[in-house]
Every structure is written in structure tokens, then in C-alpha cells.
């Protein structure tokens, strides 16, 4: 296996994954959404090809000659909560890439899903790859379509012989978060603007560990299997305390009552509907922030040698990158 075709190479995960693949001696062909000029891929020895995920023919063409395909690209927005675009990109886009993988008879097709496709359990009894889906209640097409795409991939494995593996990252933290996605929390912490925490929690993972898990899956992953790529399960209180300490700021002082957080989310959603602008906080996001989304990475640790980098290291990596790239100015 020599040549890896990667979709979505310029996001938080993609940017770290591409670097790791290069370190391991793979050739990387990176499929970039037309019109984008990703800064996070500058100076890397990779082949770039501009191609729209929704253009099935072009995807087929672009991925020709690949020994393996890693499909990272997705629309990850949570506003608006519903929309045709999520299904198009996340479900149809995944089908396009999976069909190309089948046609080119690649050795492995890795679909990067989301841990939210499983039930989330508690800290003591965290969700696994077998926990039934619970997130439909949030009414977010992002989560629903990521799960649908995973089901589609698994169906193609069973019916068409697609050499598919699913990986399900949890909440990723690390460098090259240009958007920023999870990093918005670290930027806020570094600026000292996190006054409170919410009642929920989640699984926190170093994005570099996720990249390692995926790269390992190329050789160690079993076809037809799914792996949660996660790290530590922590309440927001504990995680934010550690994040703030890492960036040298005082920990948030109090827990915002859930009813207040959810209410702020409702207000945000209504504001969004009335103005057409994305609110700072929407109702589904507020609800999610009040719930505990805990997952167990045990299977991936055992079967994919998934590393378990401490949260502080991941936060520090992200913090340094944000500092170097003027996000904290």
C-alpha cells in the first residue's frame, strides 16, 4: 500500500492525518474542495487535486490509482440544524467516494464517522461501538447524516464487498484547527472568556491520536469493523479546569444552570430564524452541552494501538499553534 487518497485534508483532522501519512512514507493525494486554498497544507509534499465531493464522476477520476482511500470530508456545521446540504455532502458525498473505492478496488476504504453515531453512556459506563444511537433527539442533520453515511458504508461492505472500515472520533483537540472548531474553546480559555461551565461532559481526544488510529487502521483495522477513536471522559468542569490551567488562566467559577443554558440556546435559535444569521449558541448545541457524551476507546486501544495522549499535551499543541498563527492577538 503506497498511495493514499484523502478527502477533507485541510480541516483539523485532515491536516494532522496528512502529515502523519507522509511521516510514515505514504504518498498522499489530497482532494480539496474547489475554491479553497488551505493554509494548513502549505509546504507539504503532497499531490493536490481540486474536486467537488458531489461530482461523482470527478471523484471517481481523482481517486484513480489510490491504494487506499480515507474519507474525512464532511459538513460539520450545526447551524442551521436542518438542511438539504447535510444529506448531500455527508450521505451522497460519502457514497460517491465509497463507489470510487469499489471501482478502483482499493485495499482499504476508511470512513471517518462520528462517535455521536452511538449511544453515549455515562463516565462509569461509557458508550461503545454497540451502544444504540441516541442523538436523534437533538434534531441535528449533521449528526443524523454522519450516522446515515456510516450505515451506508457498512451496507456496501456487506453487500458489495467494499473493504470498508469505520472510525468514530470523539471531540478532537490539537494544532492546525484553522476554522477553529474545537479550538474555539481553547482560544476562549486563553483569552480568559469562559466564565462558567455547563452540566454535561464528553470524551476528549488528541487529534494526533485520531490520526494515528486511522493510519494504524490502514494496516491493522478489520474490514467491516468500527472503532471509536477517543481519549479521556471528562465533565466540562474537569476538562475546562485542566484546559484553563494549561493555558495559564483561572478555571471557570460556576456551573451555569441547565435551564439557563438551554434557554439561551432557544433564544439563539429563534434569533437565527428571525435574522438568518448563525447564532452563537443554538438550542441543540445548548442541549448537547448539558448532556454527558461519554465513549469508550477500549476497542481501538486494543486493536489499533490507539495512543492516549494526555489532554494537556493536546491543548498545549493547539495553544501553541493558535499563538503562532495569531489567533490569540
Amino acid at each position: 500500500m503506497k498511495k493514499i487518497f484523502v478527502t477533507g485534508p485541510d480541516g483539523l483532522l485532515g491536516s494532522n492525518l496528512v502529515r502523519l501519512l507522509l511521516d510514515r512514507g505514504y504518498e498522499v493525494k489530497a482532494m480539496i474542495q474547489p475554491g479553497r486554498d488551505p493554509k494548513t497544507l502549505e509546504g507539504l509534499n503532497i499531490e493536490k487535486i481540486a474536486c467537488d465531493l458531489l461530482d461523482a464522476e470527478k471523484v471517481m477520476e481523482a481517486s484513480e490509482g489510490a491504494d487506499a482511500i480515507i474519507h474525512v470530508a464532511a459538513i460539520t456545521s450545526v447551524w442551521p440544524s436542518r438542511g438539504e446540504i447535510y444529506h448531500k455532502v455527508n450521505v451522497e458525498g460519502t457514497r460517491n467516494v465509497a463507489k470510487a473505492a469499489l471501482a478502483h478496488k482499493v485495499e482499504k476504504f476508511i470512513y471517518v464517522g462520528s462517535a455521536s453515531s452511538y449511544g453515549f453512556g455515562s463516565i462509569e459506563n461509557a458508550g461503545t461501538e454497540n451502544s444504540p444511537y441516541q442523538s436523534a433527539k437533538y434534531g441535528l442533520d449533521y449528526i443524523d447524516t454522519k450516522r446515515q453515511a456510516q450505515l451506508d458504508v457498512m451496507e456496501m461492505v456487506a453487500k458489495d464487498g467494499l473493504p470498508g472500515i469505520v472510525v468514530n472520533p470523539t471531540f478532537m483537540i490539537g494544532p492546525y484547527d484553522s476554522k477553529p472548531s474545537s479550538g474555539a474553546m481553547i482560544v476562549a480559555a486563553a483569552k480568559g472568556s469562559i466564565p462558567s461551565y455547563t452540566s454535561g461532559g464528553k470524551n476528549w481526544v488528541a487529534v494526533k491520536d485520531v490520526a494515528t488510529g486511522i493510519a494504524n487502521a490502514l494496516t491493522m483495522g478489520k474490514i467491516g469493523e468500527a472503532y471509536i477513536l477517543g481519549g479521556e471522559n471528562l465533565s466540562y468542569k474537569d476538562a475546562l479546569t485542566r484546559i484553563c490551567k494549561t493555558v495559564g488562566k483561572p478555571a471557570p467559577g460556576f456551573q451555569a444552570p441547565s435551564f439557563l443554558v438551554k434557554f439561551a440556546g432557544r433564544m439563539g435559535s429563534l434569533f437565527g430564524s428571525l435574522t438568518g444569521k448563525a447564532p452563537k449558541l443554538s438550542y441543540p448545541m445548548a442541549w448537547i452541552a448539558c448532556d454527558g457524551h461519554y465513549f469508550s476507546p477500549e476497542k481501538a486501544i486494543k486493536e489499533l494501538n490507539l495512543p492516549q495522549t494526555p489532554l494537556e499535551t493536546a491543548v498545549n499543541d493547539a495553544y501553541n499553534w493558535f499563538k503562532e498563527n495569531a489567533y490569540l492577538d
Partner: protein
Amino acid sequence: MQKIRWGILGPGNIARKFSDGLQLLPQAKIQAVASSNPARAASFAQDFKVPNIHDSYESLANDPEVDIIYVATTHNFHEEHALICINAGKNVLVEKPLATNLMQVDRIMGAAKEKGVFLMEAMWTRFIPAWVEIRKWIADGLIGEIKYLRADFGFFGKWDPLNRKYNPELAGGALLDIGIYPIALAYMLFREEPSRVETMARLCETGVDEQSIYLFEYENGAIAELSSTFSGETGREALILGTKGQIRIPMFWKAQEAYLDIHGGESRHSKFELASFGLQYQAIYVMEALLAGKKETEWMPWSETHRIMKRMDSLRASWGMKYPWEA
């Protein structure tokens, strides 16, 4: 975090419900209380751990440790008590109705404008989670254009000419006490003045309305059928019919659930959280406005209070109902 320090003027039943909710807001601190009855103030202060106890409203209005005063006395006193606070330069949240007639409303707003203070009528129903969501459904166009609204508010008020419900001296009557809920709902949903109004009221021995109905017709042909009564419990339900679907909201003024039915499509029964009695949701907005230096909120602006009071004045005028101070 900058805390907003509240003063409570008139620590009766409604003030207790409001304060129950206020205690749940990390940003709010109940700093002071004043009552015409010292024992009542003391017991309130004990229950809600209020440090500053005042034996007069003037003293509360001049308490430098208070940022905003919640006026929770009976309707007939709203003008007098709001003016005491406003003239001392205090921001105010006044229980609904803001006053008993438009003339009083104008005087309160005039004073608030002159003193540059925040003022809002405590139309709390607009701010509770259920209505925030229902407004989103409507804004998202789920039920299309609203064609019909039915909303009633009735409970059994035992006949007692001295009770505030029936006593004209205390600004009694169903309209000001509870009719304001369905009327304010119509103003919130249609956001315009009706083009035609029909009304009917039964005035009791004391001369105030023990029940009344209000029919509003709008330019686009939409109709609102609204009522209030002290004769007994009604469904207290709001029914909103739109061109594409409908929403039914049981116990609409403190709603915790709603039924959405889209014609030929989705049916949804949604439940909504309501922490405490729900009177504190408006306070979240009030405190946000205060911190932003605003004098009113977008959701219950002065103009809205003014429009609704003008409408209630004209309804009473058409029944020939006057309060003693309106002779």
C-alpha cells in the same frame, strides 16, 4: 461576573413566585425588599435571604445597592409605585398591566424617558421556553400565514366585592387581570393593530367586568377570538391556525407543551422545560438589556405596552366601564 441587584417592591404572592425564579439565575441577586407591612417584608427577607429591608418604598427607591426594582403591588398602585422608583433614577420591571389606563402609562413612560431608566411591563409569558420555540416555528414558516387565533383565560374567582378581582378601587376586572394575556398574545402573533374590533362584557355589581370577549379582525382577513372570565376554569388554551398547519398550546400563559400539526405532514408534540414558575425568564432578558445599557427590551418594548393599553382602554370605553380615578 457583574451581578444585577434586584429590589422587590410589594412582596406578595407574585413577588414570591418571581423571586423563586430569580434565585435560579447566577447573575441575579435579590438585594432589597420593601413592603407597606413590615412583618411581611421581614418574612420575605428571611425566606429569600435579602440583606436590605426597607420600611417605605421611597427608601427602597433610594437604596444605592439596588440596580432595578420589580414593582409587584396591585394594578391600581403601579403608576404611583413605578414613579417613586423612576423619579429616584431606578430601573423598573412593573407587573402587568403596567398601569390601569393609557394616561398613566404615558406618565410612567414620560418619567422613564426623562430619567433615562430602563422600563418593562412584566409580560413574562413571551419569554418562556415554549413561546420562544413556538415563535421559531412560526418564523420558520412551519404553519404558514396565521389566519386564526383563539385564546381564553378563565378561572373561578369567588364573588367578593372587596377582593382585588372585583373591587374597582383596586383596578379589578377580568380584562386587566387576565384578559391581557390573550390580548398580548394576539399582538405578539399578528404584530399589527386589528382593522375591526367587536367586544362584549358583563359588568358585575361593582361596575368591573367579570367576563368579557374580544374579537379582532386583521387586514389580511385573520381573526382573533379572545376571552377572559372569573366565572370558572376554561381550557386556557391557545389555538393558532395557519395556512400550512396549526399549533395548539394548552395552558398557554405558562405553557409547557405544544402540539404542532402540519397539514398533510408532520405532527409533533413538544414538551418544554419551565424552571420554577417561569417568571424569571423575562429577567434574563431584562438583565441583558441593563448590561447593554438599553432602556427597553425588543420583546416587550414600550410601544407594545402602549398599544395594548390603548386597546384595553378602548374596550373598556365601549362597555362604559370606568375606574374611580377616571371620572
